Each structure stands twice: as structure tokens, then as C-alpha cells.
């Protein structure tokens, strides 16, 4: 992980970073497919999951916390590694901070939205919006890193 805090080592890190970015892209696509199949991309589907369909019981609190627990690891780790890679890319400091801040806000909102839906007894559109924002913001970070590390012969931004 030394390259994460040593920009001079970025060129040597180019190949593994590219592969890592490909896996992050695949993970984001798989997450979107998983949400789609679970009905998570429509407000009605989200409400059915968390509040229960046709008077049925919604997801138990423990299941919602499990989702938060797993999501905090995967979102947190991907955000941390992409943000650290972004630090050695030729991106303006303000842009870099904005990309990380927006991704953090969007992913945290996506993890915590089920609690708001349960408290309000509706509002499934919120989770759809937070998921789209989380996906888009992480994708934007990914593209910014890929633009630097994808260049042949460049210095990976260092």
C-alpha cells in the first residue's frame, strides 16, 4: 500500500491500479444489477422491501443493520482507496476534495436511507436517488483515477 502515500511510486503501481479499477467498475455494475433484481431501483420496490408488501412485515431491524455494516466496509474501503489514488492524480485540490466529499455524502446517505424510509413509512424514491448518487459519484472518482493511470508513458499523475 506504500504507493498510496508515495506519489513517486505511482508509475510502478499503474498495472495493479488498472486491474483494481476494473474490479471496482465490475463491483459497481454488479451492485446495480443486484439492486435492480431486488426491486431497489423503483420507489415501490424499495418500500416493499423495507416496509413490507401488501400489509406484510418489512425487513427486520437486524437485517437493515447488517446491510449498513457490510456497506460501511465496502463503500468505505473503495472510497478510501479511490480517494488515496486520486491524491496522486493531476486533479485540482478543490475538485479532488469535492469528488470525495460528494461520494462520501452519497454513499452514507444510501446506507442510512432505509432508516428514514422506515421512520417516514414511505419515501422509497429517496433510496433510489441515494443509490444513483452513490453510484455516479463513485464512478466519477473511478473515471478521474482511470484517466491518470490509464495513460501510457505518463507518470500516473505523480
Amino acid at each position, binding site marked *: 500500500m506504500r504507493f498510496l502515500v508515495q506519489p513517486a511510486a505511482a508509475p510502478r503501481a499503474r498495472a495493479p491500479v488498472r486491474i483494481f479499477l476494473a474490479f471496482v467498475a465490475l463491483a459497481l455494475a454488479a451492485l446495480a444489477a443486484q439492486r435492480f433484481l431486488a426491486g431497489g431501483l423503483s420507489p415501490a420496490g424499495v418500500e416493499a422491501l423495507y416496509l413490507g408488501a401488501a400489509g406484510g412485515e418489512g425487513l427486520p431491524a437486524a437485517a437493515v*443493520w447488517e446491510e449498513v455494516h457490510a456497506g460501511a466496509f465496502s463503500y468505505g474501503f473503495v472510497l478510501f482507496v*479511490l480517494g488515496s489514488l486520486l491524491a496522486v492524480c493531476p486533479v485540482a485540490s478543490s475538485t479532488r476534495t469535492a469528488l470525495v466529499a460528494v461520494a462520501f455524502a452519497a454513499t452514507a446517505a444510501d446506507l442510512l436511507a432505509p432508516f428514514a424510509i422506515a421512520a417516514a413509512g414511505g419515501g422509497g424514491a429517496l433510496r433510489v436517488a441515494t443509490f444513483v448518487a452513490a453510484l455516479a459519484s463513485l464512478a466519477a472518482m473511478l473515471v478521474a483515477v482511470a484517466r491518470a493511470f490509464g495513460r501510457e508513458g505518463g507518470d500516473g499523475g505523480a
Partner: protein
Amino acid sequence: MRDPRLEPYRAPAIAFAAYLVLQAASAAALFALKLGGAEGVRAFYLGSEERFTAAKSLAGILEVAVPHLVAIPLVLFAAAHVVGFARALPVAAHRVLVAASFGAALAGILAGFGVRWVGPELAWLKIVSFAALEVALLAWAGLLGAVFLPRRAAAPAGASRRAAGEVAR
């Protein structure tokens, strides 16, 4: 921030620290909801007539243990790596915190197997190791915050240059 080279890592490190807090909070909520106190831990692993639950199978315990054996060391490694690089703690204190964090994580994972197959009294080990890991996660998050959160009072102009010189040496 003592080392100016850390400045570009401020935002991801703070986000990571916030996610460490969220991981600790969600783990505490799950522990309270699923296990609770010592009696709850025993009931969770050994089964309970009151709860209509069977004793945990090896496959059931491994289903939880395996992802934790990957995720917890990764998180601790990343946090310890950044805190160590930033020299936020004296070397000895850093070593102690690293050892305590990984030790608590391992003890917590093994305690589940212990309660099931060694002795129900190991429920206390599960609780103590869980609490220790929670404290460790919050400590790493606090240290990341201490290193990377902006200070209210600006340091004297020469401070960052002196810090940069120290790092270079």
C-alpha cells in the same frame, strides 16, 4: 497536520474515519439486537428453547467468521498504516494499539467457536473482545481525525516547513 505531504489524503482519510465509526456503530447495534449480554451470547451459539433456535452449526459460524477474517484485518491494516505513516503516535503506543486491535478481533472471532464447542463461560470473552475491538476502531478513527481534521488555530508559518524538514531527514 504535521506532514504537509498528507494534505492530499485529508478527504479520503476523514471519510474512512467516518466509515470506521459507522462500522463500529452498526456492529454495536447488531451485537445488541442478535446477542445482547452473556446469556444472549450463549443462547445465540448454543440454541435456546425460549427463542426456538437451534445451536449454531460449524457452517453457520464460518459464514460469519470468514468475511470478518478478511474485512477486519484489511480495515485495521489500512487505519494502522495511515496513522503510522502520519506518526500520530509514538512507536511503542502504535505497536500496542495494533496488537490490541488485531488481538481483540481474533479473540472475538475465535470466541464464537469457543462458546459453541469449548465452554459457555467463554461468552464473556466474546463480550470483552467485542468491546475492545469497538474501542480500538473508535481509537483509530479518532487518531485519523486528530491527524487529518483541519485545526482551528493555524500553525505558525514555519511549523509546516520544519515538519517537512523533519520528514525529509
